[in-house]
């Protein structure tokens, strides 16, 4: 009976303060949603890697390759020698604007997991694969983008990676127009008693990239997402804590009354815990729905990012995992528990006959502040140490975390110090009071302001990184895509005919021929180029030896891309083995953004000599830009070339930039969300303070300041704090950007980017911070201006 009365007394509070309840629920739901949303995205991506690890596409099994191509004879010889190998034909099929990765397998010899999963349980799939027409197994997402004509029949399968078609080897050879095999794939378990396969073949063995490698490669990205999620969760908890704190403060009278009526303290605690759990449960459920929505909205973008940066295929579709939902509920409960623990503790410590007077929150405590400042300094020092001596991606992120947390902890002392310094600038007593009051408020608002700082710094840091990357990328595209037109013929004879046809119209024809090779046990591509100013004048060399272009043209040296250079810790002048019997010194390094694999360049004649039988189908044309449209029309007319085979520079650039922008869409979206949550945190803190601060405002009101004036001063004070926070966030954000560009990027992608500053962006953020802070204080200020004088008077009448 007592329990029910107690509970209804407690819950009555929320009926009278619906906005407070909403704040609490929204805060907790937001925190849960952002955290669990990010978790859902990560889980989906990881599941995709696991799927990929079981498939052939990601090269999880060891392969045998040869620069001269792998033949049917190689396959038969190894099989007859007892080795379990299976043929593979891989290539990209251009279908209009769509690129389809074809993977041709031999279903009879493919070991389990080699695409067999797609066939299993479909008794007609194998027959279709072996039939004359062939069969393409594709994911439903892939099928939607494929033309209906000119392809074998399609069969939908969820087991096939997006953008890939699994088919039979002869079908793949026919569609790709190749006769040889891409590779022989080694079954993981070879028969009993055979010698090592290297002794039995001329082919080169390439270690399979395990799915673990892909996971490791993308770890940085997921760590990034998790950090964002955690940040949002922490910021959300600030909201919850202030809301719970307020609710408990306001109910001190109720607690005292209940206790006085005979409700034991333990009962009261149980009731409060139950109440908190109920709220957490409701907010958790809302958070799950919201988190799922966030994840589903962001996932296509994340998939785009992962594809763009790592070549990792992640399905754009989100599954629903009940375990995930449960863990989200748990995190909501945990969050509410964390946020409410302090409040519950205070209730437990409350003397039975405590005065019902609201107690202002933690007052400025010089000692605590000094301690916090020292801790912040230690963290910032650790961050600096990690930046200088740290090595590896995890340490790079540890450096980031130390920087952000250190900066957040340093914020209150810095703000208080700054406000103290500003004091002499204040005019009149009101100005002086404003600054002093602002200083007084910093501890109470510090959590919300820290949240704002984190959000602003993350915005500036990530914004600077993405902006720097984009500026570099655009400049690099201009250099790299110097030719006006790129043409791909379908057959060698067509290539000859096209060359003859365009020769009178163009300034230069530059072949774009490449061979797949194995460098440092990893697949790489080597291009042959002709000696032409297009390269000499434009190619984005980062470092080079003297006479680099003469040596490249002569085939005496190679250029390597930055990724390969950094990954293998190469040095200029160092020899690098391109094939087992072909080694050239490195004469230069060039930037090659967005390409996960190694790449090399040498003179075309040297490459021709080594690989005389490679098909030569692609070339770049230098031509007066004015003449490009006519030339394109002529090529399409005369040779009936598909659109994808004649691409002009502008198209490639637009496409590249579109991919780039999509890649960083997620960062942008998460930035906005974090800033929104920080704004909300300020609102709840201010709401909490608005009642608590009456004892401070009442005397000022009594001295003659109107509620309207007080309200304006409140707005000014919040804006001032927001602006000061922003001022701290700018250097923190720039440091963050520097760590991302100079440390994290190099570790994660293998390229280092110059940092470009975007002051306009900071100003926009200042406005955004102001807007968020002012919007957040509007409601509390409105309430203040509407406060009946009796409320203010009562401050003096109360039993203080």
């Amino acid at each position, binding site marked *: 009976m007592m329990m029910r009365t107690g509970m209804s007394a407690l819950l009555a509070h929320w009926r009278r303060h619906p906005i407070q309840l909403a704040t609490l629920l929204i805060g907790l739901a937001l925190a849960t949603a952002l955290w669990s949303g990010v978790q859902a995205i990560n889980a989906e991506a990881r599941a995709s890697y696991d799927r990929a690890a079981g498939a052939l596409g990601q090269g999880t099994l060891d392969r045998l390759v040869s620069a001269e191509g792998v033949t*049917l*004879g190689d*396959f*038969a010889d190894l*099989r*007859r*020698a*007892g080795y*379990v190998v299976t*043929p593979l034909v891989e290539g990209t099929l251009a279908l209009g604007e769509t690129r389809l990765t074809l993977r041709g397998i*031999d279903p*009879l*010899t493919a070991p389990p997991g080699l695409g067999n999963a797609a066939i299993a349980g479909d*008794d*007609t799939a*194998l*027959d279709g694969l*072996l*039939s004359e027409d062939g069969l393409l197994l594709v994911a439903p997402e892939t099928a939607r983008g494929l033309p209906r004509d000119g392809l074998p029949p399609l069969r939908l399968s969820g087991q096939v990676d997006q953008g890939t078609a699994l088919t*039979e*080897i*002869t079908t793949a*050879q026919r569609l790709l127009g190749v006769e040889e095999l891409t590779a022989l794939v080694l079954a993981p*378990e070879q*028969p*009993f*008693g*055979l010698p090592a396969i290297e002794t039995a073949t001329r082919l080169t063995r390439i270690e399979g990239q395990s799915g673990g490698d892909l996971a490791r490669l993308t770890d940085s990205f997921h760590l990034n997402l998790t950090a964002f999620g955690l940040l949002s969760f922490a910021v959300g908890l600030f909201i919850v804590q202030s809301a719970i704190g307020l609710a408990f403060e306001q109910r001190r009278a109720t607690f005292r009354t209940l206790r006085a009526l005979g409700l034991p303290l333990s009962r009261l605690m149980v009731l409060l815990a139950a109440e908190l759990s109920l709220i957490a449960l409701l907010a958790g459920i809302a958070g799950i729905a919201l988190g799922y929505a966030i994840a589903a909205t962001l996932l296509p973008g994340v998939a785009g990012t992962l594809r763009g940066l790592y070549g990792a295929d992640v399905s754009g579709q989100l599954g629903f995992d009940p375990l995930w939902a449960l863990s989200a509920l748990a995190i909501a409960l945990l969050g509410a528990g964390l946020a409410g623990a302090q409040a519950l503790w205070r209730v437990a410590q409350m003397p039975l006959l405590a005065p019902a007077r609201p107690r202002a929150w933690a007052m400025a405590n010089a000692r605590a502040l000094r301690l916090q400042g020292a801790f912040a300094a230690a963290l910032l020092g650790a961050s600096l140490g990690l930046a200088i001596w740290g090595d590896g991606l995890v340490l790079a992120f540890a450096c980031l975390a130390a920087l952000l947390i250190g900066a957040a902890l340093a914020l209150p002392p810095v703000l208080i110090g700054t406000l103290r310094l500003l004091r002499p600038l204040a005019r009149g007593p009101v100005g002086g009071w404003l600054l002093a009051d602002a200083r007084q408020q910093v501890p109470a608002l510090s959590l919300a302001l820290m949240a704002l700082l984190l959000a602003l710094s993350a915005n500036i840091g990530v914004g600077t990184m993405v902006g720097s990357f984009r500026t570099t990328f655009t400049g690099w595209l201009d250099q790299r895509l110097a030719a006006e037109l790129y043409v791909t013929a379908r057959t060698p004879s067509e290539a000859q005919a096209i060359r003859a046809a365009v020769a009178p119209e163009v300034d230069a024809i530059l072949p774009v021929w490449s061979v797949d090779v194995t460098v440092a046990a990893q697949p790489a591509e080597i291009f042959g180029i002709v000696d032409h100013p297009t390269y000499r004048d434009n190619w984005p060399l980062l470092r080079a030896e003297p006479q680099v272009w003469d040596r490249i043209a002569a085939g005496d040296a190679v250029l390597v891309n930055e990724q390969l250079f950094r990954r293998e810790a190469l040095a200029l002048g160092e020899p690098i083995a391109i094939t087992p019997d072909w080694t050239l010194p490195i004469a230069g390094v060039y930037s090659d953004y967005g390409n996960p694999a190694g790449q090399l360049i040498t003179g075309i004649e040297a490459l021709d000599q080594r690989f005389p039988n490679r098909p030569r189908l692609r070339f770049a044309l230098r031509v007066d830009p004015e003449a490009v449209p006519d030339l394109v029309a002529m090529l399409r007319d005369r040779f009936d070339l598909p659109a994808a085979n004649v691409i002009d520079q502008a198209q490639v650039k637009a496409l590249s930039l579109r991919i780039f922008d999509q890649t960083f869409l997620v960062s942008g979206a998460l930035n906005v969300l974090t800033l929104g949550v920080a704004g909300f945190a300020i609102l709840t803190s201010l709401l909490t303070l608005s009642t608590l601060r009456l004892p401070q405002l009442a005397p000022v009101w009594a001295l003659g300041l109107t509620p309207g004036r007080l309200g304006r001063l409140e707005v000014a004070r919040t804006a001032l704090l927001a602006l000061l926070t922003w001022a701290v966030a700018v250097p923190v954000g720039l440091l963050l950007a520097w760590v991302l560009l100079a440390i994290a990027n190099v570790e994660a992608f293998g390229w280092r980017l110059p940092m470009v500053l975007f002051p306009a962006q900071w100003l926009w953020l200042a406005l955004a911070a102001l807007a968020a802070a002012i919007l957040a204080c509007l409601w509390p200020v409105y309430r203040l201006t509407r406060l009946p004088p009796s409320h203010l008077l009562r401050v003096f009448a109360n039993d203080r």
Partner: protein
Amino acid sequence: MTVKARLTALSVALCLALPLSVPGPATAQGFAGLGAEAESFAVPDPDTEFAFPADHLPHPDYRIEWWYLTANLEAADGTPYGVQWTLFRSARRPGTAPGWQADQLWMGHAALTSAGQHRVAERLGRGGTGQAGVTEAPFEAFIDDWTLRSRAADGADALSSVQLTARGADFAYDLALDATGPLIFQGDDGYSVKSPEGQASYYYSQPFYEVAGTLSLPEGDVAVTGTAWLDREWSSQPLSETQTGWDWFSLNFDSGDKLMGFGLRSTDGSHFTSATWITATGATRPYGDGALSVTPLETADVAGRDIPVRWRVTLPEEGLDITTEPLNPQAWMDTLFPYWEGPISLSGSHPGRGYLEMTGYPPRE
């Protein structure tokens, strides 16, 4: 001889077809790839004369064919072993095609059975790639490095002396086989009727092999000797709708006589049986449906199925009344199309050894 109109495919051959569709006896007829063109396959004719070495080689105009070898072996210390080596051929359409074009599909099964262990390996491939097939000179039936290769002297039958090898994940064997008797033609001079409707196949055997060689096991090599039996069959047509599986015996009696006998089980529970009594000198006495009787005595739980592992086999015309016991009741071929195949020992009127194959036993519900 009664000329019965239609043929049945020998069901074992469907092993080759089945892994390409859903494993299981119910789909014995259902290799979808054999649509309209299947009609153009040749069918066995009772009047055809065998010609060698041509008939040792593939018959690509027939849908299914196999080279099926089983051996009862013994180590020097008396430990018994059994070895199976089978090359199946299944055609998607008559004739052959080069390279990857998959007109002729091949499947190899190898097994090594001891009392305590039954090791199995399976290989698939297609003709035209050089991975699997049968060559004439020298005669060699192969898939990967598994071979049945002739060692016969010039002028002798190619199968009179052969070398047999296979290799799995945990075993390998290399055996020399030498025939001490002639080829045996089953049924009516090699035209073997398989159902009351008269479905049939071409079927001949070499049951007179003496074996010597080596088994390679993870624990070491084992030298073995013993006897072996080769079955050659080819046909084109699937089982009749009512036939669900078979129990097939190849028996070597201590007396030197031999018996090939099988019972094809129908959905109505009846058995269609057939047998050939082979004397120690190679004379044959064929017996049509009903003469041989095979009766399960005891079942064992094998791979979730009730498999009859002890049998009573009688052929009153020859005074035969024996009981068979498996060397290893768990001789389960866990291949894409699973079946039971293993060495057995014989007691009763005619003690001896042999091999038993049982197919079409569904998993318990």
